[in-house]
């Protein structure tokens, strides 16, 4: 590193105590509770006293079919939302950085859903998705397509919520891709223009050179998807039955019921799940990272 060769006078301008304020807040309000979670997940906990019961909470968790389906739903939800966000927002970002009419208008309205509270989006879409009176099914009916019960059908509810999640999160993903595309040097695009059309530009310039943006979008939306709660809670409360329960909604239900130890065990399960999926993904992406 070039830094070690720099004189000490200069390094003094970057004092390590600058880390301190952030470290205190992060330590107190994030690290300590996180470490505490490992202990309390092994207890029967009332907040006033905790009885050590070993792995009993985890055994309960993995044997209860509704909790187990929450685990599987979480993975389905995260894979589906992050996948769709990449597939839709990359071409969208390309469109919004090209020369089309009404570009500024499109850019703004794509970002609108990001601004609205997730709770409001959830409530609005549960009305738009109502089976007989909802706008979506009225439109589908008018053009002769089937009208599913989006949120009432246990086989469909989770996917319906995931679609709304994609709609809401597309704006952020698109902005990240736009930044990625705009930081590709212009020479590459000129070369592509000589070689051929949009497909060449997409396949041979944007896909490889906006790779870092793709990694960022996948990681952020995957982490977001694994942790999702607001949308599920406002649209289905995990129902019908337990059909759309995810880990965070299970954690909340156990918390409400006063099973603090079990709720915390759910938190640790989520932590382990996120880490074993995201960590390898992250180090893979870091190795493949591109310097422009």
């Amino acid at each position, binding site marked *: 590193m070039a830094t070690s060769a720099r004189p000490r006078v200069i390094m003094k*301008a970057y004092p390590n105590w600058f880390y301190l304020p952030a470290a205190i807040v992060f330590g107190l309000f994030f690290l300590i*509770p996180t470490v505490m979670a490992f202990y309390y997940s092994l207890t029967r906990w009332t907040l006033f006293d905790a009885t050590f019961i070993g792995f009993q909470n985890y055994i309960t968790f993995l044997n209860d079919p509704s909790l187990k389906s929450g685990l599987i739903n979480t993975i389905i939800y995260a894979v589906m939302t992050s996948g769709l966000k990449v597939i839709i927002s990359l071409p969208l970002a390309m469109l919004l950085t090209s020369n089309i*009419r*009404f570009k500024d208008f499109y850019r703004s309205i794509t970002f609108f859903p990001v601004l609205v509270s997730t709770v*409001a989006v959830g409530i609005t*879409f549960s009305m738009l998705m109502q089976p007989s*009176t909802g706008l979506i099914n009225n439109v589908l009916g008018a053009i002769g397509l089937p009208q599913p019960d989006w949120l009432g059908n246990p086989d469909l509810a989770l996917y319906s919520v995931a679609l709304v999640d994609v709609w809401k999160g597309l704006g952020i993903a698109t902005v990240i891709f736009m930044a990625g595309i705009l930081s590709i040097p212009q020479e590459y695009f000129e070369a592509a223009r000589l070689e051929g059309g949009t497909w060449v530009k997409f396949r041979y310039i944007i896909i490889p050179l906006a790779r870092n943006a793709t990694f960022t979008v996948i990681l952020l939306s995957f982490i977001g998807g694994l942790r999702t709660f607001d949308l599920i809670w406002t649209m289905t409360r995990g129902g019908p039955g337990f059909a759309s329960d995810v880990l965070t909604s299970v954690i909340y239900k156990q918390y409400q019921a006063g099973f*603090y130890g079990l709720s*915390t065990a759910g938190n640790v399960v989520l932590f382990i799940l996120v880490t074993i999926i995201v960590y390898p993904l992250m180090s893979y992406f870091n190795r493949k990272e591109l310097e422009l």
Partner: protein
Amino acid sequence: MSIRRTITNLLRDVILLVTFILVFLVPFIFILLNAAKTRQEAALLEFRWPSEFLLWANLREVITYGENRMLLALWNSTLLTVGSVTLIVVLSALVAFVMQRRSDRLASVVGSFMLAGLIIPPAVVPTVFFLQWLNLYKTLTGMIMVDVALNMPFAILIFRAFMNSIPRELDEAAILDGASPLRIFFSVILPLLRPAIVTVVVTSSVNIFNDFVGPLYFLPGEKNVTAPLTLFSFISQFSSQYNLLFADVVVMTIIPLIIFIFFQRQLVSGMMGGAIKG
């Protein structure tokens, strides 16, 4: 040839415009239309022009509903947002500055804590317990601290990447002029981080203002009500007032919308400059 091309272009523009409006604008028009209806008419949840246009009356009713509960909620949410976003920007920029400039062993340790913060889901019940112990449970201060801790990692990520594009020569010149580290940070670095600050301010203020989960766990209680929670006063199993519900959505979207309109142009550039890295 050129006529044909004009027609295809026109056709493409029309298809794009219709698709964008259908997908992104129709849900908002639905919200606005229903926010302007009477209670009976809104209960039908139709996509139709209101027979009586009552938007202003409904907005006023939402704001004064339940002894100005909405005003209290907007006030609480604003305090929460301003307090946490200010701290997030300053504390994260301090970290990113030293981390990127030193890039030594300690900097990479800090970096791994940042990644941990980005990945690990917050442990809710232990946080409640710990906040109680600190006497910060059910207080705005406690909620602000939790929001700062949870949002800093992403801010540090954005700032650190953006720091790459700020030449070291600038701080070195300031050092030779005898400026103190704090002075260098506040009068040289922070102004140059502006585009990245915009990105952080927009994303984290929208997140915190609209946050539902945080207040649900850490800030319960009627006097602590925040904006998203007011929505639930208008839907219940027995009597829903959808016109007021949607008017409430309109009211609570105004603040994020103003922030967005104000900063829109700079949002993308703050993520550029090599900023797009995992």
